[in-house]
């Protein structure tokens, strides 16, 4: 479980995060949603330590991450896997070397043990026999799955995914969503996903945090987000005219 308490973050005069408090639960897919520029990525970067919050704290299973020195933070980071928006695979390395990299850096496994683990992770994301390819030779969906394989190679306790579906077609996006959900339940990890994709919200959102103007605007789950009357959420969920029409017809049929 990850607890976020009263996080504030400013960049110059721009106050991006206002006193955000929330909890990301273990064994669940926790979504952070909201429009672009509302502070979702900044919040996530504060949680994983890529940004230092101005005030507030991030607590990983009772350990206050914000008060740790670099060495202590490194020990927590070894428990974190992260899937970046652009996959962030090392383009000078093959798929195998990418997935093997954390194992080489932080374990004393033999070459065979590492290779077995890499093959297991690649098999888990349905990408066996891609070991020798370079990231540039893989499609966007494959790159995301390789990044997931790399993120789970160290058996993380926490998985962060920054817009895992961006740039993917709807079918591949669903495959990635399902993979994230399966991995979360299978390994009983705390997963935090930033997304704009309403499909993802409905499909995998066990808990949902809606960020608006850098504030914790609303929290709930996939059932309650459909029923809410919060105008900002309605504006986000039913953004297109088509969705607005669907909502109106749903309401009409209900009444």
């Amino acid at each position, binding site marked *: 479980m990850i607890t976020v308490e009263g996080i504030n973050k400013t960049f110059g005069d721009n106050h991006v995060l206002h006193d955000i408090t929330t909890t990301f639960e273990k064994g669940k897919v926790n979504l952070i949603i909201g429009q672009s520029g509302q502070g979702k990525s900044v919040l996530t970067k504060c949680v*994983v*330590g*890529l940004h230092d919050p101005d005030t507030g704290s991030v607590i990983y299973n009772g350990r206050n991450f914000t008060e740790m020195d670099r060495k202590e*933070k*490194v*020990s927590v*980071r*070894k428990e*974190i896997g*992260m899937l*970046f*928006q*652009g996959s*962030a*695979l*090392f*383009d000078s390395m093959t798929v195998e070397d990418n997935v093997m*990299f*954390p194992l*080489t*850096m*932080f374990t004393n496994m033999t070459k065979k043990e590492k290779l077995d683990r890499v093959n297991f992770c690649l098999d888990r994301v349905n990408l066996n026999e891609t070991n020798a390819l370079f990231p540039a030779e893989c499609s966007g969906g494959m790159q995301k799955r390789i990044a997931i394989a790399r993120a789970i190679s*160290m058996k993380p306790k926490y998985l*962060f995914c920054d817009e895992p579906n961006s740039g993917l077609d709807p079918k591949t996006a669903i495959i990635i969503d399902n993979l994230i959900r399966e991995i979360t339940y299978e390994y009983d990890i705390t997963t935090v996903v930033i997304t704009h994709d309403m499909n993802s919200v409905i499909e995998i959102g066990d808990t949902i945090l809606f960020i608006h103007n850098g504030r914790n605007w609303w929290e709930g789950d996939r059932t309650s987000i459909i029923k809410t009357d919060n105008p900002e959420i309605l504006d986000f969920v039913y953004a297109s005219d088509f969705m607005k029409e669907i909502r109106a017809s749903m309401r009409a049929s209900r009444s």
Partner: protein
Amino acid sequence: MKKNTLNLAVVLIILRNIGKYMIMLRIVFSRPEKWSVFRVRLFEEIQRIGINSIPIVGVMSVFMGGVIALQTASNMDSPLLPEYTIGFITRSSTILEFSPTIMSLILAGKVGSNVASEIGTMKTTEQIDALEIMGVNSLTHLVLPKILGSVFFFPVLIIFSIGLSLVGGWLSLVMSGLASTETYILGIRSWFEFGDIVYALTKGVVFAFLIVSIASFYGYYSKGGAIDVGKSATKAVVTSSIAILIANFFLTQMILL
């Protein structure tokens, strides 16, 4: 008044960058996460920065050595100057200035832009964030092998450059008939001081450090996209070239005078 404010802002930016550069260096020279990985990275960088620079250093050195020898010969109008002076001047120019300084300026373009764009691209594509999230000190992992690789290998390149420049000078003189092999070799051996080689190699080590650390600095702190990475590479080359010229002045003051 407005001009003074502008000047002050420029000075503050320079001071802030120097401060950031120093902080970066302090982090770079931390203990690597794993020595076996570091050793592999070091040899990779020696290959990329050093060995891959051998062809350009070779070609430049032969032709520059040839030009130095020809220009010296063409300016030797006085009959009082012995012919072996051509070899002496070619050797001195090559060891003292051409091989360590001019070659480093050329390498600032090749190596500096390469390092800045490589690290800058890694930054903008979040590969550096990925390293940090894994718990890897990205500066030590990426930059330290580059700095050490170049500091170890630049002296080798300089010795190689000195040798090929002297060969280039000899070839140009013999082929043009301006001096004989014997007098050229006599000139090269005249008043030779080993301290000159030490001076050249010291400059090479300092310049290697400046080129790679400055390029890494601009790459690591790149923001934005491809255009910004390009700008960082340009700044890296310009700044490291200026740093080389300034360091050259002070090293000459300290070592030769």
